[in-house]
């Protein structure tokens, strides 16, 4: 309606129509009025805390200063320099890095394999498998933790019982600092691949079938078809999957929280968990600084993934 009026006014400039900037202003007000509820909520609950956290990371605010914020000092980048000499932070950063480097490819490969299987004519009972694979992604982490703790239990666990059948004395998976992190990686891959699988499946179904027909006529085998058709055409979907999984794994928190509490010997302490602990100890400034370092790492990883997997002009 407004657009029509404007066009008419533009063609026939009449003296008594409101001045154009006044009309523009009114249009802007209408627009902002519609956007206001979201904008206010976004600014108050998302933008402001993000900015406040940045300011916070430059101070030495602790929980003991809560009642008297005037006691807080600006300390510049002290918190950041302290982070990189903090044994615990470095340990947590190392653990998180291992988790991302192993977990992301692992999850993606399993998800892609499952999606390809479901998309091909090879599998029967597809609906059953689709539900089964996706179920862990919608199950509460607490329920998952109960099941996995039972599976990984050194004495009564299913896994070690199976191992004992072939004469292997299974380790205390979650109680040993060398197997705790790999156990969590396996659990996360199992938990998250279903979600990726659904997305990959959608991507696979978007690839036109005649491409495969043509390739079959040209004599290309299944593997060659997968490499030359599926993978290149799936690249945007793979990129999305890699970015989402990468961010999720960098923010790793729930798995160690419910399974190992960061132990044994801090072998499953993640950066998010370290931040959570520091907030708990009341070191707000320090925790905010660690949050920003994690934020920068997430941006960095995402950019890297876009570089490596993003669409190329070929």
């Amino acid at each position: 309606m407004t657009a029509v009026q404007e066009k008419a006014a533009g063609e026939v400039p009449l003296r008594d129509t409101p001045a154009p900037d006044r009309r523009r202003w009114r249009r802007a007000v209408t627009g902002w009025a519609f956007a206001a509820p979201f904008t206010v909520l976004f600014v108050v609950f998302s933008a402001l805390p993000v900015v406040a956290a940045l300011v916070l990371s430059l101070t030495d605010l602790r929980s003991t200063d809560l009642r008297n914020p005037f006691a807080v000092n600006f300390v510049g980048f002290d918190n950041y320099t302290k982070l990189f000499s903090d044994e615990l932070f470095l340990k947590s950063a190392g653990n998180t890095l291992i988790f991302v480097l192993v977990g992301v490819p692992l999850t993606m490969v399993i998800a892609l394999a499952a999606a390809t299987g479901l998309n091909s004519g090879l599998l029967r009972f597809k609906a059953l498998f689709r539900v089964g694979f996706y179920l862990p992604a919608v199950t509460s982490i607490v329920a998952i933790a109960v099941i996995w703790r039972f599976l990984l239990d050194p004495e009564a666990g299913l896994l070690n019982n199976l191992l004992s059948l072939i004469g292997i004395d299974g380790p205390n998976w979650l109680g040993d600092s060398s197997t705790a992190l790999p156990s969590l990686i396996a659990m996360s891959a199992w938990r998250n691949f279903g979600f990726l699988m659904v997305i990959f499946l959608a991507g696979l179904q978007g690839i036109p079938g005649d491409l495969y027909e043509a390739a079959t006529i040209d004599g290309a085998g299944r593997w060659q078809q997968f490499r030359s058709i599926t993978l290149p055409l799936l690249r945007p979907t793979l990129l999305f999957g890699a970015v989402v999984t990468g961010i999720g794994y960098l923010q790793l928190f729930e798995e160690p929280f419910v399974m190992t509490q960061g132990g044994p010997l801090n072998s499953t302490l993640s950066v998010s968990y370290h931040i959570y602990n520091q907030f708990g100890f009341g070191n707000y400034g320090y925790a905010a600084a660690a949050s920003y370092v994690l934020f920068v790492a997430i941006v960095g990883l995402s950019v890297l993934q876009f570089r490596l997997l993003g669409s190329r002009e070929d």
Partner: protein
Amino acid sequence: MRRHRRIATAVVVAAAMTLAAGCGRDSGGSQDTAKAVSDGKATGEITVWAMGTEGEKLADFAKDFTAENPDAKVTVTAIPWDAAHQKIAGAIAAKQTPDVSMIGTTFQGEFAKTGALDPTPTDLFAKDSYFPGAWDSTVVDGTAYGVPWYVETRGIYYRKDLAAKAGITAPPKTWDDLKTMAKAMQDKAGVKYGMNLQPGKTGSWQSVMPFAWSNGAEITSGDKFSFDTPEMTEALQYYQSFFTEKLAPTNLPEGQLEPDFVAGRIGAFMSGPWHVGILNEQGGAGFADKFAVAPMPVKKTGTSFIGGSNIAVFKDAKNRDSAWKFLQWLSKPDVQVKWYKAVTDLPAVQSAWTDPALTGDANLKVFGEQLKDAKAPPAIPTWEQVSAAFDTEVEKLAIGGQDAAATAKNIETKASSIGTGS
């Protein structure tokens, strides 16, 4: 869920930050003095935050209080333990505290330092009526903030029948006795592990410190940490020896302790009073005769750890005087006994222990005696952080084979870099 909670804290902190224009933490600060509380009955609404079972049962229990004070009303909000710290911190920052809150002993130093807790009016509460270790946990910089509500302490649970089978008829009295008993039960009574001690993980410092205190070690000396001492090292050595001599398991799965103890695979363990009920339940009929509790073994002393919870009034309380009257009521010996019967929280008030409900049970009686010689860590704001570092070093000692002297030194270094927060 958790992430939302963290964001909520960030928002609260952000709100506090916008106020923080001028800067400079004032050192020391003035000493708080308690104001007097008015006479007469409690009136008006008293808002209370409580955690765990206490949070669930207190509202019902407080009906006796409102019967005595008809113009007063007690409103209890139950808070889960793992949300408690952030919720109280948030309330302090926003100056939206309730009148009264349960304060975990490990939070005490931190929250008292914020200046949000009201000093305990000494005319209403007599220090001497509480167990000294419990009272000390309320004291920060010489002033008490709040009062002890209930207590717990640690003793040695052991299988009487298996000890007898191994030729030991008296409860272990000294460090050597305990070791001898563990060995004998393993060699002669067929138990797999003679003793269970926590090999690290959250709260393992609570198992180590009794041995350290018994040997004369202290956590702080003046305003500095004193972990790196010969007494501490010797205690750590003793603690470690149970693992190196294969008397204690290094990776007992969670929840395995009780069934193993009942089945006779573990001969003894160190724990608090709550285990009496658990063992009677899991052991079934007649098991109560097979085990007993011994006080902490003596080196120089037989000092144990005292835990539990305090309860405090906030400075921003809307109904301060009535709040203190409610706490005074909770501290009455007969109310403490009733509270024990309602939720099995052990009374922090000494004279409550003369009641048959507590003296009737031989095992509880041991804990009652032990409470007279039990210590809490100093109420310093950074204790939670220091103890987390402590726990990791205990794990290295028990499982990783780190030697005792290095452990004492590492705890000292880490604790000093965290600081006492003053």
